[in-house]
């Protein structure tokens, strides 16, 4: 039977190969290829053997042969072979190999599927064909813009995305761009539309500088927003006061998203205020602003903008129908009143829905993190046990192995125990009806940690009135200071200082500023530090490092009606700003 014969041949070749009888192995491959000319497996084997023995031309020929025989879903076999060859063969050899692949393509010897895979695998390295090269040259001159646009549209509608990417890659690789600004910006828009954000940004960087045009600024921010990564915008643009001042509506729109993503409250406020100025006469801008306020849960601002929109609509309507009967006006006002109430109700529902959603998301994140953290030691225990079982089945186990296994398991259960005990401050407040002085609470924590602080030579300072009293459980609140100080101590390592400043404003807003002079937190982590199980420390180290400290801080503060944020402008260490609304019932509806 053919099947058995193939298998026997393959076994025989493999035996020869690993016995170092290379020539015989290759000869047998060739024999097998003649016997089974449709089987891609033998050329692949021949290629591998030749490559490993430095016979690159012969390997390349075998791989090409294999390529023509591969079935559509088997392209990865060629891809691995190509990568392997690339890592051992010299560069100019690879160029000639590429030409030969190119040759197969031009001769139409490959199936459509394999062709497509080749393009997406080798991309711009394959200069496709002469037509493509010619076309790419044309795309360097804006005179040809209509032709290029048509072609790009055609590729897009034919789902030939690899060609669009190849054109971009070709342009990125070539030096000429100054003559094709329009074509380039069209190509960038296409790439954005197709979700090829990195390529689009590379094109922008190469072809659109200096960014004089507002549209390009909007485009950069928009692509970054879609990518949920603003690092390119931050590298290329300086988004400062001047930038906000000079912005138009489209830019303001993107800036709102940007400042929100970066948690830059002041600039966000400034941008919203500017939009508000423009919203005075424009209904669309006012509506956008209304939606922003709603999504920010700024109920009162949204309401006032809503009233403003109504006024605008009313005056527009009044402009259109100046001569109408009085009764109509009356019913219009009535309707307006009703709809206003409906809107308020809807907004209240919306806000409470959002609050509910946020809680659900927080809970989901926590459970997700918790199942991951629990899953990790469970995996380790299971793998350790299963690994031992595999050894036992092969009679390869020793008593020492068993000893190692048992201590591994105990280590993992310790980890589970530590994890659970970290949750107790959140779960069980002891004295909810008590009250305490914040300053005294902070001082107590410093006292408790005094020995360790002294060992690390860290000095501490607390500034604040001693009569600032909060209702609640002091032990629970002290976890806020504990976790922040422990984080600082880990960050500082040796020699440093920690300052806590406590103050209260006329509006009963308590502000606690917590500052250390450690290495600070990298900006890209600002968003994540309060998420449960976000950690930069080694989780296997035992004491802490699970990424729960700041999450616990955040949760406790929430119970005390407080917030915590990181001060982004503080450069010489880390500064957290905690704010707690002191008295309840002061807010008005």
């Amino acid at each position, binding site marked *: 039977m053919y099947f058995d014969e193939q298998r026997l041949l393959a076994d025989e070749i493999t035996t020869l190969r690993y016995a170092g009888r290379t020539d015989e192995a290759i000869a047998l491959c060739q024999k097998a290829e003649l016997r089974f000319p449709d089987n891609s497996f033998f050329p*692949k084997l021949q290629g591998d053997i030749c490559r490993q023995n430095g016979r690159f031309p012969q390997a390349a020929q075998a791989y090409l042969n294999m390529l023509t025989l591969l079935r559509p879903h088997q392209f*990865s076999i060629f891809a691995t072979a190509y*990568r392997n060859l690339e890592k051992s063969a010299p560069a100019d050899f690879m160029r000639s190999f590429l030409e030969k692949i190119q040759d197969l393509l031009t001769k139409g010897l490959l199936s459509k599927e394999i062709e497509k895979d080749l393009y997406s*695998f080798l991309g711009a390295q394959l200069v496709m064909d002469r037509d493509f090269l010619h076309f790419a040259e044309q795309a360097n001159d804006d005179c040809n813009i209509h032709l290029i646009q048509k072609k790009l549209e055609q590729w897009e509608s034919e789902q030939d995305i690899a060609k669009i990417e190849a054109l971009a890659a070709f342009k990125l690789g070539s030096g000429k761009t100054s003559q094709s600004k329009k074509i380039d910006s069209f190509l960038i828009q296409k790439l954005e539309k197709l979700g090829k954000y990195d390529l689009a940004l590379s094109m922008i960087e190469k072809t659109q500088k200096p960014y004089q045009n507002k549209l390009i600024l909007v485009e950069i921010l928009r692509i970054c927003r879609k990518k949920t990564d603003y690092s390119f915008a931050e590298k290329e643009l300086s988004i400062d006061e001047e930038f906000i001042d000079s912005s138009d509506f489209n830019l303001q729109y993107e800036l709102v998203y940007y400042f929100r993503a970066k948690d830059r409250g002041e600039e966000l406020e400034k941008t919203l205020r500017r939009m508000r100025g423009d919203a005075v006469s424009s209904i669309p801008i006012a509506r956008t602003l209304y939606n922003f306020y709603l999504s920010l849960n700024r109920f009162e601002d949204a309401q006032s903008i809503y009233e403003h929109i109504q006024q605008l609509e009313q005056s527009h309507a009044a402009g259109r129908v100046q001569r109408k009967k009085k009764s109509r006006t009356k019913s219009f006002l009535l309707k307006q009143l009703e709809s206003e109430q409906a809107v308020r109700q809807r907004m209240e529902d919306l806000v409470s829905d959002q609050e509910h959603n946020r809680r659900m998301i927080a809970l989901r994140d926590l459970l997700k993190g918790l199942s*991951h953290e629990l899953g990790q030691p469970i995996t380790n225990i299971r793998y350790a046990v*299963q690994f031992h079982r595999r050894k036992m089945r092969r009679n390869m186990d020793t008593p020492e192995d068993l000893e190692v296994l048992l201590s591994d398991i105990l280590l993992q259960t310790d980890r589970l125990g530590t994890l659970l005990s970290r949750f107790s401050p959140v779960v069980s407040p002891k004295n909810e009806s008590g009250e305490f002085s914040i300053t005294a609470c902070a001082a107590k924590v410093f006292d408790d940690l005094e020995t360790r602080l002294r060992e690390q030579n860290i000095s501490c300072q607390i500034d604040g009135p001693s009569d600032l009293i909060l209702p609640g459980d002091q032990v629970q609140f002290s976890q806020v200071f504990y976790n922040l100080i422990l984080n600082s101590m880990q960050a500082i390592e040796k020699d440093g200082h920690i300052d806590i400043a406590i103050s209260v404003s006329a509006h009963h807003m308590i502000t606690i500023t917590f500052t250390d002079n450690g290495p600070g937190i990298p900006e890209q982590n600002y968003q994540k530090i309060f998420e449960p199980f976000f950690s930069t420390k080694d989780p296997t180290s035992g004491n802490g490092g699970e990424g729960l400290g700041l999450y616990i801080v955040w949760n406790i503060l929430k119970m005390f009606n407080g917030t915590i944020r990181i001060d982004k402008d503080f450069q010489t260490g880390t500064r957290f700003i905690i704010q707690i609304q002191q008295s309840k019932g002061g807010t008005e509806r």
Partner: protein
Amino acid sequence: MSHVLIIEDEPATAGPVKKSLEADGIQADVAGSGTAGLALFREKTYDLILLDLKLPELSGEEVLRAIRREDPFITVIVYTNYSDFADIKRLTNIGIDGYINKGPGADLDELIDVIEGKLAPIDGAAMDALFKEFPND
């Protein structure tokens, strides 16, 4: 000989996987972070990458994206101990060849079988798979 890259930050997880593969004649390297994993991936040629999703520095998803930008065809198996449908959908769209659960259902034997099944046709298990594709004509 097949060559596997394990990108996993937990030595206690990576160890048994590496040793089991080596016992079956498969070479395996371990990278403890996404960055280290990408560096190895660029330096050497692997037949398969086993990728944990939760990693320090770069996330597993970011690593996967970077790998796919450079090599759309290398076999990548993702294994993780928690993920929902949306995660899997996103990963599938970036391009993965296999998905394995860790955590309470973690099964080393299954993991090794899947890896060996996916490896290049030179290895025993995968060679059988290849010959199944070439039935008696």
